[in-house]
């Protein structure tokens, strides 16, 4: 038994990582909270840059009281010396040592220099990123992800343009549309490919999630206040423009997901904020050898991965919104604090968080089914459409790899076309390439969670011993 308190490295300072930090700190472990951003908060509670002097940041946020609680809690634990918070640390790899772990992180926005820190346990709360399926014109400047537009608004207090179409599918579209409208953008339309009736049909399983429904209804009402036209069972067929986005063509969809002939309409806009759902960040878990279930990190009731000493919480383990991330983070933090001290935790201590988790997981499973991307989207991806943005690989090239060259799986398609081999390591294009190729989406194995300068790899920093 070491005399010093065990060290828990929490990676990610979003709702999950913050809840985990507050739950573990002060329970006999020292927490090192590591995040790539300049301020804590993650995606949901992304804060305006300090220098912008926002006196009323809550105007861009929901559940502000919860944020105040997290922030005050973090400050108290920082002051008590129970937590060390490392901002602007981009973790690119977590190594298993015996015993413990070494966390490697690149410093600052430049990411040229790497530091290493030792920990006895690791809690992955890395959240997710957006999935966007390709369509003609989606590489034009002015086409951005819905969450990206939201991130620049919340963090930089800027709008992507004057006239915005918000499109795709999923629960993120509503807050993004209302956020942009409140901040002064003209939202020309919210184009949702799903059918709300499908959602209502599933609503039977939703009785347990009234807060979430109220939040959704609130957003819907705000859409009305801002005069945002809502187009359900519609899709963006194409984005138009030469050097930048000028307009989009939207169309109604029939029950089979086919565009309804004659329903096409041009909408003038300088911005298209588009999203087809979220995908979890799993690279660090994968690198540690944690098992995945499809594209999410597999965890047990205590949020433990199948690698001893590694926990995961929040959207890394499945997409379910900020409230679910908070509940999972709390459970993971309590479990980690107990286990790292060599004791067995009492699940009764987090019974309320566990109930919330059960409820919200069921709620989001139902949402996920309702908000599936429009069927037959692949048919609308023309051969000339770039599907891999980094390597500029077209849908035609992917189809040729499958057709005449006989590629039978995603790996072969990639080798033949270079799709997914660029800077983003396939994060952005994988669902699109898999769809166009007609292959099962196989989560790529990425050795490093961040591109790492060669000099760093040649001389890995020696971790300082834990204090």
């Amino acid at each position: 038994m070491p005399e010093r308190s065990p060290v828990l490295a929490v990676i990610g300072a979003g709702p999950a990582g913050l809840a985990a930090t507050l739950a573990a700190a002060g329970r006999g472990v020292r927490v090192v909270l590591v995040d790539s951003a300049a301020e804590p908060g993650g995606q949901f509670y992304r804060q305006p840059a300090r220098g912008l002097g926002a006196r009323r940041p809550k105007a861009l946020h929901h559940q502000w009281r919860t944020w105040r609680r997290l922030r005050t809690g973090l400050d108290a634990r920082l002051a008590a010396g129970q937590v060390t918070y490392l901002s602007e640390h981009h973790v690119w790899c977590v190594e298993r040592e015996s015993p413990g772990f070494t966390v490697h992180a690149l410093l600052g926005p430049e990411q040229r220099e790497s530091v290493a820190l030792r920990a006895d346990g690791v809690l992955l709360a890395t959240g997710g990123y957006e999935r966007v399926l390709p369509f003609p014109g989606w590489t034009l400047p002015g086409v951005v992800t819905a969450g990206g537009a939201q991130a620049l608004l919340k963090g930089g207090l800027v709008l992507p343009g004057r006239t915005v179409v918000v499109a795709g599918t999923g629960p993120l579209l509503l807050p993004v549309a209302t956020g942009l409208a409140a901040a002064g953008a003209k939202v020309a339309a919210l184009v949702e490919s799903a059918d709300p009736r499908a959602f209502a049909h599933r609503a039977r399983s939703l009785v347990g999630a009234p807060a979430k429904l109220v939040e959704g209804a609130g957003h819907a009402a705000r859409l009305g206040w801002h005069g945002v036209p809502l187009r359900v069972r519609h899709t963006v067929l194409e984005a138009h423009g030469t050097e930048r986005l000028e307009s989009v063509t939207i169309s109604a969809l029939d029950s089979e997901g086919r565009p309804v002939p004659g329903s096409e309409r041009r909408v003038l806009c300088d911005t298209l904020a588009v999203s087809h759902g979220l995908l979890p960040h799993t690279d660090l878990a994968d690198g540690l050898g944690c098992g995945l279930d499809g594209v999410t990190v597999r965890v047990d009731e205590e949020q433990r991965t199948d690698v001893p000493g590694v926990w995961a919480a929040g959207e890394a383990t499945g997409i379910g919104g900020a409230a679910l991330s908070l509940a999972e983070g709390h459970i993971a933090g309590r479990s980690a604090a107990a286990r790292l001290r060599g004791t067995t935790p009492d699940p009764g201590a987090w019974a309320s968080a566990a109930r919330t988790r059960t409820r919200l997981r069921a709620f989001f499973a139902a949402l996920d089914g309702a908000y599936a991307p429009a069927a037959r989207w692949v048919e609308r991806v023309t051969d000339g459409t770039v599907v891999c943005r980094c390597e500029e690989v077209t849908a035609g090239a992917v189809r040729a790899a499958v057709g005449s060259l006989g590629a039978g799986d995603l790996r072969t398609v990639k080798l033949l076309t270079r799709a997914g081999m660029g800077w983003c390591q396939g994060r952005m294009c994988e669902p699109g390439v898999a769809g166009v190729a007609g292959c099962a989406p196989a989560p790529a194995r990425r050795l490093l969670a961040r591109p790492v300068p060669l000099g760093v790899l040649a001389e890995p920093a020696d971790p300082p011993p834990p204090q």
Partner: protein
Amino acid sequence: MNPLRLVRARPGAPFTVTFDGREIEALPGQTLAAVLWSAGVTAWRSTRGDGRPRGVFCGIGVCFDCLVTVDGRPNQRACLVPAAPGADVRTQEGTGHDA
């Protein structure tokens, strides 16, 4: 309405950066992407293959579409890098190493 008014921002003193030689105004803390957006600029890279314009896509450092050359260093993600007074920001052509 605009975002600064919405949150009643009282930003620190503005400063300038140059974009392809032209001076544009920046507020402290804003990323280069935010600064370029507020100046109405949405593209600051041309792709290696087809020379097509690109700017922000994911907004959170994942997609690498927003690469830009800053003070002679190519491949900086504009959505992550904060603007510094006097920074010399240039459209990145291809890999940024061809020039």
